[in-house]
């Protein structure tokens, strides 16, 4: 039976139009998504490189100056300036966001309103508050001053920005999950083509294969095995391309990723086999309709408009439960973002049930050995 596997494999991977839809098209889409959403997503989440706020310092009271120096290179970028006049000129030109006056009473001059100016103001306010507290402690409880100074230097970040699963916050990732789900469904193109070659009432090839002594179910099972293998490889190529070449984080749970990719490949192929075997249309019409049956569920799952899935969830959640693209992207999201195992398992079980239903329909359609008309 190995030769059957080999020849079906060769025949499929050499079918360039089919492989374009199943492999090249999702890769092209991923690249376009990267340039459209990927970079925007990265900067929106603050993962892009932070630029420290440029500032000049006039006068140099030891306390405030040392406070500012401790921020230099991190939140602040203190530029050297010879005089106040020179610093004001730099402020006018927009080279710096503000000027700190580190005199007896520290003050700040800013050129306009904005994020950087707010940061400078907040830093000055923080210093003034701490200075006032320490001054009061020195007056009332001087014995506690060392502990208070120690405490003011013990800065703790109490709020962390993270996902439930601690994985990724990149908002653009949902587009890439929807894209991988679409790519999985694109296996339908392979399934439709293969089903066409098995039906004696549609093609001479189908007739020739049907009159041989090799059991038809054997042929169908081998076809399916080959197609799932090829499509699983397609999805892995796409996943590696998105994760390693485009640098979009899809999570670190590789076992789950492999499982969802496999289920996605299986559902795409079986969906194509079922659609191909239950309809008596020409190959061109079937292929055109396959574009619809892969893109429409993907659109509903948020491939073109990320909020679509949420809108459906609010109004007709049942659609999201039976839409294979929605279930697949949900499984990817559970794995890569939520780390919600219960929901992940529910998605996988749904995909298994869908695959069994598609496979049963495909078998019922193709296994027929005698036709009413040819």
């Amino acid at each position, binding site marked *: 039976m190995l*030769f*059957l596997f080999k*020849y079906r494999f*060769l*025949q*499929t991977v*050499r*079918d360039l139009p089919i492989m374009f839809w199943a492999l090249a098209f999702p890769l092209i889409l991923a690249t376009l998504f990267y340039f459209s959403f990927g970079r925007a997503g990265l900067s929106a989440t603050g993962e892009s490189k932070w630029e420290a706020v440029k500032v000049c310092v006039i006068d140099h009271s030891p306390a405030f100056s040392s406070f500012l120096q401790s921020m230099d290179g991190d939140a602040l970028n203190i530029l050297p300036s010879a005089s106040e006049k020179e610093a004001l000129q730099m402020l006018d030109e927009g080279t710096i966001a503000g000027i700190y006056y580190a005199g007896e009473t520290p003050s700040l001059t800013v050129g306009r309103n904005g994020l950087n100016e707010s940061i400078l103001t907040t830093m000055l306010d923080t210093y003034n508050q701490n200075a006032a507290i320490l001054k009061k402690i020195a007056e009332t409880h001087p014995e506690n001053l060392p502990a208070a100074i120690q405490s003011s230097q013990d800065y703790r970040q109490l709020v962390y920005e993270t996902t439930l699963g601690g994985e990724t916050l990149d908002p653009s990732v949902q587009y890439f999950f929807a894209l991988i789900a679409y790519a999985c469904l694109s296996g339908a193109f392979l399934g439709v083509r293969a089903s066409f*070659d098995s039906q*004696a009432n549609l*093609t*001479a*090839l189908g*007739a*020739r*294969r*049907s*009159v*041989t*002594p*090799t*059991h038809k179910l054997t042929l169908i099972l081998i076809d399916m095995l080959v197609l799932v293998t090829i499509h699983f490889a397609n999805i892995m190529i796409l996943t590696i391309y998105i994760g390693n070449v485009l640098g979009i984080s899809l999570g670190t749970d590789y076992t789950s990723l492999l499982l969802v990719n496999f289920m996605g490949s299986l559902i795409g192929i079986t969906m194509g086999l079922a659609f191909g075997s239950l309809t008596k249309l020409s190959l061109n019409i079937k292929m055109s309709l396959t574009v619809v049956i892969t893109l429409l569920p993907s659109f509903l799952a948020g491939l073109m408009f990320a909020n679509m899935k949420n809108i459906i969830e609010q109004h007709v959640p049942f659609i999201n439960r039976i839409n294979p693209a929605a279930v697949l992207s949900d499984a990817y999201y559970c794995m890569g973002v939520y780390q919600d195992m219960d929901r992940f398992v529910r998605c996988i079980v749904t995909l298994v049930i869908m695959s069994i239903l598609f496979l049963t329909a495909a078998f019922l359609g193709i296994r027929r*050995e*005698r*036709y*009413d*008309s*040819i």
Partner: protein
Amino acid sequence: MIHIENLVKRYGSFVALDHLNLQIQEGEIFGLLGPNGSGKTTAICCLLALLKYDKGQITIFGKEMQPDRYDIKKDIGVVMQNVAVFEQMSVWENIDYFCGLYVKDKAKRRELVEEAIRFTDLEEYRKARPKKLSGGLLRRLNIACGIAHKPRLIILDEPTVAVDPQSRNKILEGIQELNRQGSTIIYTSHYMEEVEQICSRIAIIDHGRVLATGTTEELKNMIKTGETITIEAVAADEHLLEKLQTLPHVFDISYEKQVLKIRLSSGRHNLVRILNFLTEQDISFGRVFSELPTLNDVFLEITGKKLRD
């Protein structure tokens, strides 16, 4: 070897096979001759258990044919009317694939594939993809895929449609060679010359019924026409045609564009008698031909229409 009894196949109210009966013996090249739409391909599809039929019985090699009779199927080779090969695989790969559906042993299969390639004269093209082949070569590949496993029974459904004369002759010679090597052949065609050339027995089929069966000679003997005399450049009138009709053995006369066609039943000196008559009537004429009946005459007389109508 093959018995088809009272086979009936209907598509709604249309009767495609109307109580079709056929008996095919081992070692024959059996021709199914009929116009397009006469039921030849439908009969073949029923024979191969691809089509459901309404009534009748089919036995091959003494066993009832069913879709799951793989023991019967392994001894049958089929060459479909439409070319059935994988576009993405080479000539060698296609033959190997289809042969492999019958023969599991790799070494034996390799031998059979090589033999099929030699047999169909495709050695130069073994690595070529079907797209690169001409119509004739493609038909030869189609045949190679169907016969590589050396089946006892080979069914060829119009294998020479849209093939150039040179390739057609090669294909016909090949079929005769397969028969000499021991295969029984069922050959369907609407080209009577081909059927007449290679078939040892013929069934004429129309409207899903077998109208006549026999060897070429037997079929020709079944009809009234023994000879057709064609006379060119003759000026005939109604009176002359009426007189000709009264001559012995003459049973049909047609006259068109100064060409006189006289069909006669078998008899001695028919040509001499006709020419003497024209000389006596002082009628001048041009070239004269005398032809023995063809299958077309047989078909014409049995069905009342020409084969390619």
